[in-house]
């Protein structure tokens, strides 16, 4: 073991706490602002300690929303974000795991071309093809719908590659064994492969849920109705009006609410999160 002297350890602790402070400060300020009076904030007189408007502000944010810019309770926006995030995560895992299964466990004509067709999508995020994608979604009458929000974001190969890699490491003996037991391809998939993939699916789910919840550009383009807004879009609209009219405590309460679910997932499912992050980047 390389010796660490006491002094160096203290320095390490101090640097880490400074890092944590830097990382947490903007969020602390947001929380403090969400508990204070708007007039005070607008005058630039905001205090650095929490105020007394916590319940009032959060109640109004979740159930009523801002009076001017969004006309929609943030609770409803959170529901939209949740549905979108779940659809993206579950949808992507479902279609990816079965296509990876086909590509690994079957030999069929055009197997490799199909693999490459899926693989290439890895390279291009939705941002580089937004308007043509918008047009297609519009032509399919999917604007302002959950399907329109989720489907274009499902069209990428990360999960397929991950499952393919994992299936390659599953020993062949398992398949031989279940074949002797008389299991067909679907039984083998359901009874053997799926249970084995549980951790991978969970790790992937955590990452995809966070990515889905945090989507911005795509929902911004395709949602026009107030009741289809996601929370990220809601925040942006709240600060659209001239600064004087911005209801800062509500904006900040919305920011806090927007962070809560994904941050909760990262902290509580830290092991799965780290695993998912490392695996999807491979």
């Amino acid at each position: 073991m390389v010796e660490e002297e006491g002094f160096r350890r203290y320095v390490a602790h101090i640097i880490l706490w400074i890092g944590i402070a830097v990382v947490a400060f903007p969020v602390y300020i947001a929380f403090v602002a969400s508990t204070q009076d708007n007039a005070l904030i607008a005058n630039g007189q905001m205090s650095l300690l929490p105020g007394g408007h916590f319940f009032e502000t959060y109640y109004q944010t979740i159930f009523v929303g801002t009076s001017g810019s969004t006309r929609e309770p943030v609770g409803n926006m959170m529901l939209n974000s949740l549905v979108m995030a779940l659809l993206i995560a579950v949808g992507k895992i479902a279609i990816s795991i079965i296509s990876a299964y086909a590509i690994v466990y079957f030999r069929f004509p055009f197997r490799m071309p199909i693999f490459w067709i899926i693989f290439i999508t890895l390279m291009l995020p939705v941002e580089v093809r937004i308007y043509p994608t918008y047009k297609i979604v519009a032509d399919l009458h999917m604007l302002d719908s959950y399907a329109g929000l989720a489907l274009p974001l499902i069209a990428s190969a990360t999960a397929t590659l991950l499952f393919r890699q994992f299936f390659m490491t599953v020993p062949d003996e398992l398949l031989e064994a279940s074949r002797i037991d008389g299991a067909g391809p679907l039984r083998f998939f359901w009874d053997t492969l799926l249970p084995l993939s549980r951790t991978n699916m969970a790790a992937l789910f955590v990452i995809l849920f966070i990515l889905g919840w945090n989507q911005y550009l795509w929902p911004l383009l395709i949602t026009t109705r107030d009741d289809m807004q996601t929370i990220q879009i809601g925040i942006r609209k709240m600060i659209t009006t001239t600064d004087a009219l911005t209801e800062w405590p509500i904006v900040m309460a919305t920011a806090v609410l927007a962070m809560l679910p994904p941050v909760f997932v990262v902290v509580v499912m830290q092991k799965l999160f780290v695993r998912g992050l490392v695996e999807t980047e491979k």
Partner: protein
Amino acid sequence: MQKQAIFQSKLLPYVLVAPQLAIVLIFFYWPALQAVIQSFLLQDAFGLSTTFVWFDNYIELFKDPAYFESVVRTFFFSFAIAVLSLSFALLLAVMADKPLRGSMLYRTLLIWPYAVAPPVVGVLWIFMLHPSLGVLARYLRALGIDWNPLLDGDQAATLIILAAAWKQISYNFLFFLAGLQAIPKSVLEAAAIDGARPMRRFWTVTFPLLSPTIFFLLVVNIVYAFFDTFGIIDTMTRGGPGTSTVTLVYKVYSDGLLGGNLGSSAAQSVILMIMVIVLTGIQFRFVERKVTY
């Protein structure tokens, strides 16, 4: 590498790949193809007729000083964000890698900003540094700095770089920490026995062994700065003041939306696609190297 044990079935594999194939073809290939086609077309002002104009849209772009400026700006932003975020994250990771009490707690407290969405990051930072009501802006003015990112383009750019780098710290920290933990302790012990002081050990042993991680993170950070900064920019500055924070992705968005110039927007999309493919290509070549390394 291929599986030896497989199933025989004519129809089933096609049924299994069909959903993904359909979604990818409809929502990925078709729009990408449309973008390429559109980039060769010119639409009249009313959208009634289109003419095939070869590379005119591209030539227009390359002649446009505003486009050139946004290319330079995007690369500058990427570089600044990557350097700032990587160096801070590396410092924290080196500290957290030491055998300290509470190191798991430190990790938890440092990784959660990964989950904060870009538009939220934008709102948090503009609020702290808002010229009239920002908490930090007060102190800047007290220091005699004429702080107003809503009017001053350089200050707006600084704000975006800071906010974007802040968000990326946690991601970089996590990968640096994993990279550091993968370095065999015996190598560091050997250096210590040879009499190398901690600082020297870091620069001559740790840093070179970490270079694959650094390179990987550099590419990831650049791609992040290209795309994920959109939400930050859109909530903080809307590309302004003037065009001082318009990046390439922001320009694709605003030219297509406000200007209605779809041909040019499509050409910009295609150029972006090529850039990302090159970046990903570099990343893949590097991953290959890491496997054999």
